[in-house]
């Protein structure tokens, strides 16, 4: 591995079960390629999203947070 | 053990000697308040201050203290076995600690180190490696009530050495073997110096007008005090915050938790306080001290009844007055104890 391996961020993706999670599913079925940096957390609704979740992700060393409804 | 005179222009040498094999801390003016900090230069050390804003118990019992660590890897079961944090590497000295705070550390010794079982490794390690050089109080402040709490402005309990500011010079009274070396080569105190120190002591003691009585507290039964009516009023304005316990030099309750980050983990202890409802709640949800009244009462009963009962009359309070100054709703410990004593 080279010394300057490209930085691969870790991103927490909070996806609404009914919207973006479905889109992610469809993207998979459609064989659309996307980078593997995102860690998907399915939430029942964007309304369930809490600022605690975002801070918790940062506390655990995640580089970015993406919330999608 | 010996009374010597330390000229103020010799202070640099004195501190230099302390610094030779120790890290030295002293009260310094930080943001307008007297606070404990590593002593860089002699001029930073405060001589005229009532007391440090927060107590120095943090040196021996840090607010957050890692006790042990482990490695959590499926392949390595040995990693799950807790390893203690290393001992303190360098000895330390606290210079110009007030007698009340030193007394508090001595009270805490009785709690952290009781017998073979109750022998707090972390506390004892730091205590053993720290030299306490006290500064007698010549100008106690109005919230001080140390003279009512087995202590006093010139008390030497818990100290290795005591300094008394005689104006142009200091009286150095060494009290333990640890501090003997500090006095070497210094001139003996003259009779006049001793008389001056005694005069300052008397004046300081007399200037403390806050008095708190303990005779009835000692005489009354636990349940008698526990069920007394005063607690209904004392607790009313209490916010159940932890200010009084965190600024107190003798409060010593703590919580132990495990923290994990990936494959590494640690067991850490943090100051905790009996004012928090969470403090005593059982796994079942039952809480033996479920009301604010229970918790407020616990703090005062612990300090003024339980500790004296269990520790041969020592009181869990040294009268430093910090909680009186810092309580957001002015619950004045002097008033509470006097009510308990009524």
């Amino acid at each position, binding site marked *: 591995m080279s010394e300057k391996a490209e930085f691969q961020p870790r991103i927490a993706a909070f996806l609404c079960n009914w919207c973006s999670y479905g889109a992610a599913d469809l993207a998979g079925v459609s064989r659309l390629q996307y980078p593997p940096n995102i860690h998907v957390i399915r939430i029942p609704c964007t309304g369930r999203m809490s600022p605690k979740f975002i801070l918790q992700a940062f506390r655990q060393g995640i580089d970015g947070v993406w919330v999608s409804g | 053990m010996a009374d010597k005179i330390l000229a103020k222009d010799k202070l640099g040498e004195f501190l230099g000697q302390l610094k030779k094999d120790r890290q030295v801390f002293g009260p310094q003016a930080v943001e307008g308040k007297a606070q404990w900090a590593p002593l860089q230069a002699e001029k930073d050390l405060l001589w005229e201050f009532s007391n440090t804003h927060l107590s120095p118990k943090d040196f021996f019992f840090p607010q957050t203290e890692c006790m042990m660590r482990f490695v959590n890897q499926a392949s390595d079961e040995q990693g799950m076995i*807790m390893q203690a944090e290393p001992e303190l590497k360098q000895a330390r000295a606290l210079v110009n600690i007030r007698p009340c705070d030193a007394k508090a550390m001595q009270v805490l010794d009785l709690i952290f180190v*009781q017998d073979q*079982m109750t022998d707090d*490794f972390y506390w004892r390690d730091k205590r053993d490696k720290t030299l306490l050089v006290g500064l007698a109080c010549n100008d106690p402040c109005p919230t001080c009530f140390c003279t009512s709490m087995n202590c006093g402005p010139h008390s030497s309990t818990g100290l290795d050495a005591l300094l008394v500011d005689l104006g142009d010079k200091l009286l150095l009274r060494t009290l333990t073997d640890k501090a003997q070396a500090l006095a070497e080569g210094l001139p003996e105190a003259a009779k006049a110096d001793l008389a001056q120190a005694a005069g300052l002591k008397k004046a300081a003691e007399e200037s403390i007008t806050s008095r708190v009585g303990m005779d009835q507290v000692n005489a009354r039964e636990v349940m008698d005090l526990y069920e007394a009516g005063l607690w209904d009023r004392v607790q009313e304005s209490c916010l159940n915050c932890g200010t009084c316990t965190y600024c107190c030099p003798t409060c010593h309750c703590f919580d*132990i938790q495990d923290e994990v980050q990936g494959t590494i983990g640690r067991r850490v202890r943090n100051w905790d306080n009996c004012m928090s409802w969470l*403090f005593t*709640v*059982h*796994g079942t949800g039952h809480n033996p001290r479920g009301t604010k009244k229970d918790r407020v009462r616990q703090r005062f009963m612990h300090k003024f009844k339980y500790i004296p009962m269990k520790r041969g009359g020592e009181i869990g309070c040294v009268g430093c007055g910090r909680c009186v100054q810092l309580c957001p709703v002015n619950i004045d410990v002097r008033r509470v104890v006097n009510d308990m004593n009524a």
Partner: protein
Amino acid sequence: MRNTYIPYPVRIKKAELATEDKQLKTFLLEFLNPEDAQAFDYMPGQFAELSVSGYGEIPIGIASSPTEGDDLLFTVNKVGHVSTRMHNMREGDVMGVRGPLGNSYPLKAMEGKNIVIVAGGFAVTTLRSTMVWLLHPDHRDKYGDITFVYGARTPGLLLYGDEWRQWQQRKDVNCAITIDRAVEGWDGMVGFVPAVCEQLAPKPDNAVALICGPPVMIRFTQPVFDKLGWQPEQIIMSLENRMKCGIGICGRCNVGPEYVCKDGPVFTKAQLDKLPKEY
């Protein structure tokens, strides 16, 4: 100087569900280092802090008796973070034990006396330890009559069946095992513990009672013993409170001036009568 906060490493030798509701699991723990087993010198009534790295510690009464060898027996109720984790651990896993902690039942002082043991639910753990200790050939002769009353809601919630079935066979133990309500397949006693005590009517003469159970059982058992003429000094109970350090420092388990972890968990009723009800 030993750092008393460091748990002894142990391995889970056996872990099995103990009750039908799957709330209780019994663990047999084996010391990794024989010298630790030597150092862990305990008596019935004492407890230990069970430590799971990354989760924390919980105080649990020791259910085994020192007469049974070096392994330690604990029955753990699944209520919190640590106990839930323990229920998910497997045989062979490594964890920690810190102790022994607290005082024990005053077995020495109880010599020559008749003994009544009353247990309810899973509070039976340290009383199992006591029974095993008392019935050991080295000790049995030193005590008078032994009465063991143990009740649970249903037969499936009774712990340590292997042991009490043996005790029922013995002539030198009066063993009454009861369940709250009659169910099919149970031919033993039926009724609440206080009612059974009333029936048995243990005599207070030269006797000591060890009572341990849920608050509601204690509340109704108390008057039964009072009526039979038992004095507060003869009744011994074991308390539990939230704990952290386990060695009398951290300040949360105290009942008045007494720390449950260090001065207890075993107290006589006479002692408790003079203390606040902070448990």
